[in-house]
């Protein structure tokens, strides 16, 4: 069996290696981690799956991730986490809103509202770890995307593309306080190419 190659794009984050340590538990994959400010658009092509890490600030502070989504969203599997999720949403035209109060280090309950491959064999409600001060707005939500989970406070928690294998999650699957976080990452990796 051919090994699946996974690129983890690190947006100057301090949770990226939690994702990597989860990936290491999955058999038959190659994992490469690269800092987003050092990556070239063309080398992304060597990989089957792309994970865009969380990070500080807003996706516009890391312009390369928009270029990567633009270039590869029709051909590769992409999972965006937190900042990566906001990047996917705003790439397709979603508005980003600054929330108050901000939510850092908290576990909230979320509900899966539409079945999607990354939530395969996972309960409909689960507790997830959150670090966010920005969210995707319901207003002008892009037609290309669909909402797949929502938090107990009504905030959009995950999205996917209707046509492509692109998934975004607001919460942190790699967090200690997230239930089934490893399963979510594994589901993304196991999704047939």
């Amino acid at each position: 069996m051919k090994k699946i190659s996974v690129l983890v794009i690190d947006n100057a984050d301090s949770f990226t290696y939690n994702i990597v340590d989860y990936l290491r538990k999955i058999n038959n994959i190659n994992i490469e981690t690269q800092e987003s400010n050092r990556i070239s658009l063309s080398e992304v092509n060597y990989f089957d799956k792309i994970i865009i890490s969380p990070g500080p600030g807003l996706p516009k502070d890391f312009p390369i991730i928009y270029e990567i989504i633009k270039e590869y969203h029709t051909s590769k599997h992409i999972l965006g986490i937190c900042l990566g999720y906001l990047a996917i949403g705003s790439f397709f035209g979603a508005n980003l809103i600054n929330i108050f109060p901000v939510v850092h280090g908290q576990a909230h309950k979320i509900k899966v509202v539409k079945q999607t491959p990354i939530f395969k064999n996972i309960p409909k409600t689960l507790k997830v770890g959150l670090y966010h001060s920005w969210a995707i707005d319901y207003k002008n939500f892009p037609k290309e995307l669909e909402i797949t989970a929502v938090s107990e406070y009504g905030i959009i928690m995950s999205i996917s593309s209707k046509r492509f294998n692109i998934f975004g999650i607001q919460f942190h699957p790699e967090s200690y306080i997230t239930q089934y976080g490893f399963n979510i990452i594994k589901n993304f990796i196991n999704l047939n190419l």
Partner: protein
Amino acid sequence: MVLLEFIEKANFYGAKHIPFLFLVDFEMHKLFLCTLDRASKLNVLYQIGTKRNFDDKNTSICEKPILELYPINYEEYLKAFDIVMKNILAGNTYLLNLTFPTTITTNCSLLELFHIAKSPYKLFFDNQFILFSPESFIKTKNRFIFSYPMKGTIDASLPNAKKIILKNKKEEWEHNTIVDLIRNDLSIIAKNITVTRFRFITKIYTNRKDLLQVSSEIRGKLPANWQNKIGEILVNLLPAGSISGAPKKKTVEIIKEAEKIDRGYYTGIFGIYDGTNIDSAVNIRFIEKIGNHIRFRSGGGITSNSNPIDEYRELKDKVYVPII
């Protein structure tokens, strides 16, 4: 010495199983490393758990330490706090450890304070600074690496202190953040990261009041022959998560903007490699000599739920000498 020289030396001694002592500053500009047997010749006294290179006999003439505190004024503290909070709300940082020096006067000398202080980790560095840290940085044992981030402090004399601190949501969220950060850091240099103990309590006795501290234990598996790479292992974990914050890179930039002065060896790390394993501390509870006066450096973690009055109090509360 500079960073590269430090890494090379640590790797060299590590591979040859030669015990050494190391000390790294927060900015990683002035790193120090010497073989363990040379430490006392260089006027460096250390205690790490039960290992130490000095004794207290005939040294302590200063029985009751009295500290007079001259902390930063509140207005100045607030300015820095506001810089941090603005960045938290913008999503640039989730947790940031904000620190300031407090000038102190005392009836004891640095060396006397060093001998009086009771703590698992102590360092006297050539009469430039002393520290008596309760916080472990990393330990290794049987190819496992352990880290013990400490976040959450409460006055032990309060009724139900233990229950209050464990039930406090703000403390819990802050602790979650540090646990995720340290898991990440260990994942850089080790595998199979596990939280082996979550939010356990330890007690600290001080010259002022007794404190309860909340810690967790996080464990990872090191590669075979990790001693050959001790230098990289240490440096990749720095600055320590508990005294910087998350996400680390951006948070360190904000710290520089808010604190304005270098931290130096304060909030760096020190430790020993005994030829087989490492035990080390985060350089907190730190007193340094600056010209004719001495100052105590302290701080605390700022999150979106922090309020400046409490944080300012905590900064002053942490200026103490542990005596029992």
